[in-house]
């Protein structure tokens, strides 16, 4: 595929580039405030804010104007910028009309595990919990040896085997098409883990990185590190602080959720933005102008274990 993305063709508002830029700048500023880094110690009450369709549209128009201007001036446009514009355009549509998918280009993945670490940082995952490991496989024999790297997020199956086995419907496909876990509902029976054909779920056993480390005096930043481990994550749009070793999300099954708390704020998933090989793509497959729509019709696309009928939303380019 071409390494130079095309600018989306969706028409821009007639207010013109400048007006769009100004309007968009305001919306972007508002969005930026909403999506600002989460305070280190204070968790917001209730649900986090998300972009409204109007805000998303304004931000999109600003973004597309900027991209067009860059295109005219000959500045290369990165895939991330294209996907960000795609994302804002998708957010301006009704929820039911979006279909989030992820595409992973195995030829471009260099196995740096940056996505794994970005995911751990974004979701403040404790030891033993992983949403997006990168599987490594060595093929061939010397001198013809190569390595293959397969990042494995949750496949967000359209026909997920993990949801039907939950005795209390704590895991389900939410309105965004993402397989979610209700931490307050989950009883921790782990039936969903046994049902997942991709091993995409892990159990939070309650570990912390800082437990049983030497006293704070002997380790620089020990107190800050300990408090960081208790900072809220915003999975599923709600703050989840890991402060009580016997309360959720400890004792729950956890999984990748396509960083919906970021996506609904106009940000790409953490694994996408940090991929240095630009191997991971994210967007709305219902939008024919989106980058992911171009990618998933390529003849070299596969999905893992398709024979099981799970209809994964994660596509791999070979």
């Amino acid at each position: 595929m071409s390494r130079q993305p095309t600018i989306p063709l969706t028409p821009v508002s007639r207010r013109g580039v400048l007006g769009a830029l100004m309007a968009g700048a305001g919306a972007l500023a508002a969005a930026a405030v909403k999506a600002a880094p989460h305070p280190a110690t204070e968790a917001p009450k209730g649900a986090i804010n998300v972009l409204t369709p109007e805000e998303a549209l304004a931000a999109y128009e600003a973004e597309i104007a900027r991209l067009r201007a860059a295109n005219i001036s000959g500045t290369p446009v990165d895939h991330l910028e294209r996907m960000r514009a795609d994302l804002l355009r998708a957010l301006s549509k009704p929820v039911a009309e979006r279909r989030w998918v992820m595409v992973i280009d195995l030829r471009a993945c260099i196995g740096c595990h940056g996505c794994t670490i970005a995911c751990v940082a974004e979701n403040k995952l404790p030891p033993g919990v992983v949403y997006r490991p990168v599987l490594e496989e060595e093929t061939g024999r010397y001198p013809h040896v190569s390595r293959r790297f397969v990042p494995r997020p949750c496949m967000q199956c359209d026909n997920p085997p993990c949801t039907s086995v939950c005795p209390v419907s704590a895991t389900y496909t939410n309105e965004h098409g993402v397989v979610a876990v209700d931490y307050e509902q989950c009883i921790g029976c782990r039936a969903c883990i046994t049902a997942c054909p991709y091993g995409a779920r892990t159990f939070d056993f309650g570990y912390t990185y800082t437990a049983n480390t030497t006293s704070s005096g002997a380790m620089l930043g020990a107190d800050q590190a300990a408090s960081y481990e208790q900072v809220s994550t915003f999975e599923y749009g709600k703050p989840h602080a890991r402060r009580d070793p016997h309360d959720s999300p400890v004792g729950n099954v956890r999984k990748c959720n396509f960083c919906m708390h970021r996506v609904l704020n106009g940000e790409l998933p953490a694994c996408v933005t940090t991929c240095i090989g630009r191997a991971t793509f994210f967007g709305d497959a219902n939008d024919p102008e989106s980058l992911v729509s171009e990618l998933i019709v390529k003849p070299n696309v596969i999905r893992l274990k398709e024979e099981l009928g799970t209809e994964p939303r994660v596509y791999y380019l070979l």
Partner: protein
Amino acid sequence: MLNRLLYVAGALGLLIGLWGVYDRFVYGHMNANYGSYVVWGLWVALYMFFAGIATGAFMLATLDLLFELPLFRGSGRMALWGSLVTLPAGLAAIGLDLGHMTRIWKVYVQPNFGAVMAQLVWGYTIFLLIVIVSLWLSFRPQPSRWLKPVMVVGLVLAIFLSGGIGALLGVNQNRVSWHVSNLPAQFPIFNLTSGVALMLIAIGWFGPSRDPRRAQQLQVLGLALVVLLLVKGYYLWTDVSQALYQNSSHGAEAINLVLFGPYGWAFWLLQIGLGMLLPLIVLTMSPGRNSFVTGLMGVCVLLGLAVARANIIFPALSLPELQGLGDAFQGPHLSFTYSPSLMEWAVTAGIVGAVTIGFVAGADRLPLFARPAESAGTSD
């Protein structure tokens, strides 16, 4: 002497179990060895084992309390007692396995009945009530007209709940060694085998020595156990031979783990040798002749069944869903190898100890074998 020995062993198990339960409640699941890959461990096997005995024992109770077979008259209460003692043990094991056991009420209030686990929770709750009610009815001095209808419902539930455990595993189409249509069909046979084995212990070790039917009961149950072990062995053969015929599927890997994996010795020595071959030989040669030995064969069969439960669960979960998953990310409880931790064994010892004490105490202190009509002198 035997009773005293069992009481002491049970009390010792309970003591060890107290430490295990303390550890479980204070440190949660951190000191368990099951993890995010081998997600179900010793306690799930224990749940299947004890729940299997409970349903199997209930099936045996119907011989007396529902079908009124003269040979087994007076044995129904003992079978029900066995069911009553083992079912809570199984439920305790699975309860301790939950990440949030205090949320179990949600399965009753907000159930997803499409999930086999929810069906089992409801089913076993109803079944436990049926066991309690039928035991209470069987103790009444006058025969109750409600006893038989309750036993009918209980029998149907016992069969379906037995199959339900097979279905709990079998619905996972990604686990080839579980996802076979006859797995739920096998479990009622397994559980009936458990029930017969329990009754061999009950009658062989605790049955009234003056009862002239005792030897005949042991003989018939012993021969029934021989037949059941043969059927069980045939099931095992079909599982193994089909999986290994091409020796290339995921199912073959699981079977190879059972036969030749790190715990292959448990399969050959305990499940096959002690749990099948020895009882087959002893019970065929002299069915029911020596009541102590016959009871001991019941223990051997139960031990073999416990290992079989573990061999159904662990190997299937010990195979990575995707190649390379086991090495992709390092962390606690991210391993495809499993051996139970000390804490898991301690809790298991406690549960087994409690069951032993409960079972022996019932046989020792309650009039479980003698029915009022019989003690008044009625004979067959």
